[in-house]
């Protein structure tokens, strides 16, 4: 075989290898059917083992208008920032929407910003929370048979995989005051941080992992940042 032919074949093999690498990296950075399914299933197995969730969950997909990507933007928007403990929750229903809301009484354990003091109890309202199979059936308007015991079965509505607050939960909240004196979490769920030891982090919505950060940090760092930017 001539040297020229060997060189040509070598070049073609090299091209194939380079193209293979290029395609495989692009395919993994985008999303492809069967492989994507496998990845999703793996993620799902880790869900909610630490939450007191019922057997049934209705998972909704909610869209937001603004991303608060850092502590600075959350702090600038918030009327109150504090560490709190959820004292009680109750489910609230609205006429036009299937998904129930949760009204939580949250006691201020440590006030970081805003006109609040330790011991104050603030009312927060979030979309999502607990209801029963009976409600799901009735609100859906679809006739499907349920036994008496099934009717009482608890169902949790989660939006983007994120639960509403639960009794006893310890959280750091960036809250915005509503006209009726209740509060909402800034950016729907973006200003709600879970506390695990000294580390705090917010839950990243399912499917938005590449667009949204958990802002994991220790409490001292959070306080330092908040003090730098608070109103």
């Amino acid at each position: 075989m001539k040297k020229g032919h060997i060189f040509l074949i070598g070049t073609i093999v090299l091209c194939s290898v380079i193209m293979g690498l290029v395609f495989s990296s692009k395919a993994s950075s985008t999303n492809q059917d069967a492989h994507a399914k496998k990845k999703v299933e793996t993620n799902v197995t880790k869900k909610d083992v630490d939450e007191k969730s019922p057997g049934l969950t209705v998972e909704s997909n909610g869209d937001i208008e603004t991303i608060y990507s850092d502590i600075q933007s959350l702090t600038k928007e918030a009327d109150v920032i504090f560490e709190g403990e959820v004292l009680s929750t109750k489910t609230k229903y609205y006429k036009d929407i299937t998904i129930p809301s949760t009204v939580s009484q949250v006691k201020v354990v440590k006030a970081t910003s805003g006109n609040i003091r330790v011991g104050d109890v603030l009312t927060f309202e979030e979309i999502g929370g607990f209801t029963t199979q009976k409600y799901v059936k009735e609100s859906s308007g679809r006739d499907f048979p349920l036994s008496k015991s099934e009717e009482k079965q608890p169902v949790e509505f989660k939006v983007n995989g994120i639960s509403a607050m639960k009794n006893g939960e310890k959280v750091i909240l960036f809250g915005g005051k509503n006209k009726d004196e209740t509060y909402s979490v800034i950016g729907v769920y973006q200003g709600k941080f879970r506390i695990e030891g000294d580390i705090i982090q917010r839950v990243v919505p399912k499917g938005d992992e590449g667009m949204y950060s958990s802002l994991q940090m220790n409490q001292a760092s959070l306080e330092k940042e908040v003090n730098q930017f608070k109103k």
Partner: protein
Amino acid sequence: MNKKLPLLFAIVAMIVFLPTDVFAYNLFGYKLTNGVGNWGKNRQYYYVHDSAKTYYKPLIKGAWDTWIHSSHIVSTPISFRETTNKKSAVVELASFSNNDSKHQYVAITSFFRYQKEVEPWESNWGWAKIDLNRFYMKNHLKADQQGTIAHEIGHAMGLAHNGDSFSIMCPLAGGRKTARPLRDDYEGINVLY
């Protein structure tokens, strides 16, 4: 040999940098149990609740049309028509305005199945319900409102978010630059159905 070298490098460069068809769509991994119809053969139905009919009926029709009439971009099997019989619908559209907080969802899509809980990342769904937030929708142009409806319809059929601003499945917060589905969105549907 030396004369052939530049030619060979040119061929290599051409192959490596040739524009390739790589699609940007994300899937929940599951889909509507009974599909999205089969254009020209059979169809599925959507139902519009009074709460949405009052405010968004033409926009809902427009949003569906952008999904159905796509053959100038990519053909899909999607075939939907409005029904007044809710039980025969696999997608429902409603609107709500539950309080005046500015920290609310723009729209929410929920997934249901008879007597079963449904997470779109875990199993197929029998029907989906789209809830549009009037408080937010009113702050947007009609074209963007229609885009939001088309985005939620994408969820109802099985598409998840992606970060491409020229995809209808880019979240509004991600800076969506289109009010209608584009090539990648249709390709995602063709993978599912």
